[in-house]
């Protein structure tokens, strides 16, 4: 069991990809959530939302759906879609530990969201592969940036 260690460079890389996704898909906001329920980072108009609870609930929803998938012989569903009257949620699997939650409204469409989120997922997957190689540094001396030691 390894912990998830994020540095400023990782967050910046993730945010850049997610901001690009928001712009290209015209979504409202996007969350990157660990399957445990931890919010890793987010982009967009999230200030008035409880993103922590949203992340936990989305992870719970995904976990429940995964259990449903296994009941019918699938390993897991890679995409969840909840449609609302104006705002909808698109939850997609990024890698084995991470899901991405995209919230969008009626100014875009689901097809665009799916295409763009899949494109962004590939970039995020690459970044998360690098994140898993991160090592712990002393909290006391940590500056937020990735240490440059050999």
């Amino acid at each position, binding site marked *: *069991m*390894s*912990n*998830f*260690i*994020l*540095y*400023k460079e*990782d*967050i*910046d890389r993730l*945010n*850049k990809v*997610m*901001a*690009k996704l*928001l*712009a290209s898909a*015209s*979504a*409202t906001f996007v969350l990157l959530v*660990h*399957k*445990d*329920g*931890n*919010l*890793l*980072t*987010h*982009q*967009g*108009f*999230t*200030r*008035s*939302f*409880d*993103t*922590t*609870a949203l992340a*936990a*609930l989305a992870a*719970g929803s995904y*976990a*429940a759906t995964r*259990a449903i998938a296994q009941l019918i012989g699938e390993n897991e569903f890679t995409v969840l879609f909840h449609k609302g009257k104006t705002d909808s949620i698109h939850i997609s699997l990024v890698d084995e530990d991470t899901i991405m939650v995209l919230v*969008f*409204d009626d*100014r*875009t469409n689901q097809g665009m969201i799916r295409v763009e989120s899949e494109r962004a997922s590939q970039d995020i997957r690459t970044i998360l592969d690098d994140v898993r190689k991160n090592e*712990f*540094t*002393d*909290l*006391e*001396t*940590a*500056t*937020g940036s990735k240490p440059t030691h050999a």
Partner: protein
Amino acid sequence: MASINYHTREISCKIVYYGPGLSGKTTNLQIIHRKVPKENKSEMVSLATETDRTLFFDFLPLDLGSIKGFATKFQLYTVPGQVYYNATRKLVLRGVDGVVFVADSQRDKMPENLESLKNLEENLREYGIELRTTPFVLQYNKRDLPGIFTVEEMNAQINFYGVPAYEAQAHQGVGVFTTLKAIGKVVIDTFNTKYSSRQTSRRPEPASSTPPAPMPTIPPPPAPVGLHMPPPPAPIAAPESHGSRSGFIPPMPPRPVGPPPAPQPLRPTPPPAVLPPPVAPAPAWPAAAAIPSGSFAPPPPAAPQPIQPRPMTPPQMPTPIPPPPQSAGVQSALVGGYGMDLPPAAPPPAQSIPTLSTTGFAPPPPPAAGVNPIPGLQSSYFQPPQPQQQAPAAPIPAAPRPNAPTFRKGRLDGTMDAKELEEEIARMERELHNALPPVNPPAAAPSVMPPPAAAPAPAARPSEPFQFNPPVNADPAFSDAFLSPEEIRQFQQNSHDYPTQRLPMNPGNGQA
């Protein structure tokens, strides 16, 4: 699985309250949610049935102080207790960092306790986690009911691993925070152990196999009332690196595969020489109930200590940790958002950009040399409670394009520079969501801060284990005492007012 974010300086941990149905797991979270100051918590989310039974989980994010300037964000979950909800129970356990087992003390509930404990161990094992190596405390709830087991009997029957156990009357608020502090301490100690060893192994200095020396100046605090520890199974020296400095429980040493080293008891216990040899293997579950109580060596027949309102432990405030040199924006965010361990800082410049979550939309403003330009990613509940932030004295400058109606959620306007864009986003967001209520400055925060004058300058601070300094030690709101009769009446009458997502379904639990 703890998550460490060096950028936002947060450490996230997941605590799960486990136990049989109707043992009081949700009540624990409700009491915590009720009593914790606003700046330390967010809304509690409860996925419950129409009959107020937990269907999926309850969720309460909580800030419990800091470690070396890193905010510790605990996410408290409960599971549905009924037997037939095992599928959802298992889902909630994913990535757990610590477990609180809430046991029902009533005699006729012991089979359910044992079944739930067995189920916990099975479910953890499916994630490759062993209960004996996981931070784990027990809570013996409903101590006010008639027909309950004594603490010694409870210890003998379900405390297989010699973990800290606490009495509680959750619906009256007794024992709830003691348990919370205990699991928080154990989780942080485990974190401490894990990463202290890594740091030691990476240092070029000769690595000592012994843990680093404890802080010598702070004596261990008095034992909390209601703590009942099983005696240690073997005379094991107290682990020095985990001296109980922060105020609540005996330390949880790292549990190797060998005999579980019991925490140092806070009560006088019989000499360890009379104790039986340690119980090394996990108990065989089918025979768990039949394990002779003598093998667990329950404590001497001390009369059950009546639970009384406990005088608040005086705060053991360690030496304040100086914040690392950062820009004013970062500094203000730390003080406001995580600053339980930091002295009050000067207010931020009036023109500083508030903390934004939208920095990815535009190139950040040109940073000064060595300065982090992004104040940090903030959850909405985690806004830095700066008194000046909501003050109208620092208005957003007149928008250069006041009539830009097309700029709404998700639309980018390329004619703005970065600063204008940030301001526009902030303004639009306020309008869209009816001008968010201003964030009140924390009322209790200054009271838990040490007087700056009394703080000696930490000039040459040796490398030390992480200090866990939860505000729960200092804030009376976290004290573990009886609720007043009026509070109990309000709680019982209004407990259904918690933000609960009532699901219009009947899970078939036999209650109509």
